[in-house]
């Protein structure tokens, strides 16, 4: 079977950039990725652009500014997992033999404040049902009750990710915080305090995918393979699902979109959670990261707090989660989040992540989930 390798990556840093357009940021990221891959004009046959707030023809504007159009350019919107969706489409097209080389990028320049989403009807906004952090808070409360997780654990997630972020030059927040300061930040929606929530912001991330033949041997120094890129939506029935329904059923056994995507991704990649060396996961709020441990199968149900407390998910632990600092340090650029994670994993698997390097990392997983519902799971493996 045809393999797909990551031939190059590029990133415009996370942050807030007055006077820099979303096109400018996309150009910077795509140009870097193409240069790393040694690909120029005419060197790729399709492009997929993940964005949720970019607007009409976002991908065309970026590639147009680079003088590289004519091939199909597809903008992909799948909420927080838009970048994973773009990667899924690009990878599948190569595996199907349609193209040899594809550019996949994500760009976002989020408005400030609580994210306003066209997902909600006007009456829902008017009546206060578009309070996104409130849904996070309700989900956190139910998770905490069932999993023995306290507010102190939520603060510990923030402390861990902000400590990681200190070593990421592309993160927006690069200072350490302590648990007391996290707990002293104002309550947005009980039990979530302000610093337990990520900030919407701006970034562009790009990846060049290329067809490759399976390599013999397993030396850990070969190309980085796209082992899986999976997108799943929700099954109906869970009231606090990321699909944000007005009501749901009392069935608590439904698999979440994240679990659906992870299960598929492990099967496609031919590995399991025990084979992972490094994970980048959706930490839109601190509880979301701990939920992801369980939903991705990194720990048994009810085991997230212990995993965190034991330092397993810190850099230096057995399975570091969010060595980049996560969205809590980088900020959240919806449609570009997943590709930002993929760029981090590529640096980790190449061994070029500096002070936040996960030593000997060979297999990495990137996870995004959000409104839709959309859940994306990407697995990279260095052959």
């Amino acid at each position, binding site marked *: 079977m045809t393999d797909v390798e990551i031939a190059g990556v590029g990133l415009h840093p996370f942050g807030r950039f007055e006077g820099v357009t979303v096109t400018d940021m996309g150009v910077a990221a795509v140009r870097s990725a193409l240069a790393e891959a040694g690909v120029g004009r005419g060197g790729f046959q399709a492009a997929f652009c993940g964005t949720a707030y970019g607007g009409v023809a976002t991908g065309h504007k970026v590639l147009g500014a680079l003088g590289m159009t004519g091939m199909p350019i597809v903008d992909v919107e799948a909420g927080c997992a838009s970048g994973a969706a773009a990667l899924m489409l690009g990878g599948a097209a190569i595996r199907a033999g349609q193209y040899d080389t594809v550019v996949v990028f994500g760009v976002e320049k989020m408005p400030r404040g609580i994210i306003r*989403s066209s997902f909600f009807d006007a009456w829902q*906004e008017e009546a206060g049902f*578009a309070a996104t952090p409130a849904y996070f808070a309700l989900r956190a409360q139910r998770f905490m*009750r069932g999993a023995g997780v306290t507010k102190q654990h939520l603060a510990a997630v923030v402390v861990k990710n902000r400590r990681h972020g200190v070593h990421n030059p592309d993160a927006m927040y690069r200072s350490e915080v302590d648990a007391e300061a996290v707990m002293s930040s104002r309550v947005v*929606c*009980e039990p979530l305090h302000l610093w337990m929530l990520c900030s919407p912001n701006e970034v562009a991330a790009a990846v060049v995918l290329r067809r490759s033949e399976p390599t013999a041997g397993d030396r850990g120094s070969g190309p980085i393979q796209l082992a899986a890129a999976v997108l799943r939506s929700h099954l109906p029935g869970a*009231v606090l699902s990321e699909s944000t*329904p007005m*009501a*749901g059923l009392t069935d608590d056994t439904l698999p979440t979109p994240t679990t659906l995507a992870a299960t598929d991704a492990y099967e496609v990649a031919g590995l399991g959670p025990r084979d992972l060396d490094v994970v980048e996961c959706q930490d839109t709020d601190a509880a979301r990261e701990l939920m992801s441990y369980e939903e991705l199968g990194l720990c048994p149900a009810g085991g997230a707090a212990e995993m965190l407390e034991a330092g397993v998910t810190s850099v230096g632990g057995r399975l570091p989660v969010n060595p980049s600092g996560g969205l809590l340090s980088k900020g959240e650029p919806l449609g570009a989040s997943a590709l930002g994670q993929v760029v981090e994993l590529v640096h980790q698997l190449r061994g070029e992540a500096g002070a936040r390097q996960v030593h000997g990392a060979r297999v990495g997983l990137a996870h995004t989930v959000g409104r839709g519902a959309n859940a994306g799971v990407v697995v990279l493996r260095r052959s």
Partner: protein
Amino acid sequence: MTAPAPVREGLFTDADPPHLLGGRCGACGQHHFPLHDVCPYCASEGTEAIELSATGRLWAWTAVTHPPPGYKGQVPYGFGVVELPEGLRVVTRLTEADPGRLHADQLMHMVIDPLHIDDEGRPVVVYAFAPDDAESVSSTPMTSIL
């Protein structure tokens, strides 16, 4: 006085007591809210409109402290999920905006809650759930489990 206007038609009745207007699927028997033509759980088209139970138990709760996008009411306001006897969990405003005064499985009943006065001077109303008066304030308030 101008008659109150619901924030959206078809969500609830204004009888005494008021009820949420949901649906029941003739094929799988599950309930849903708001009313849909197609059952959201099994995709059957034979749904019937029904009045849902006016009382239920509190399943999750928080308070919104800053106005979210497009919101026209006051802050803070309670926000949560109430479980109805039909086997349905409904996302709802709560009349109690202090999370410390609510507790899991608390008995709740549906009320019609004023939201704001619109441009034509009409009170706009929405559904909410209120704690039953008979129940004393929680012996295990939310803050104690956190």
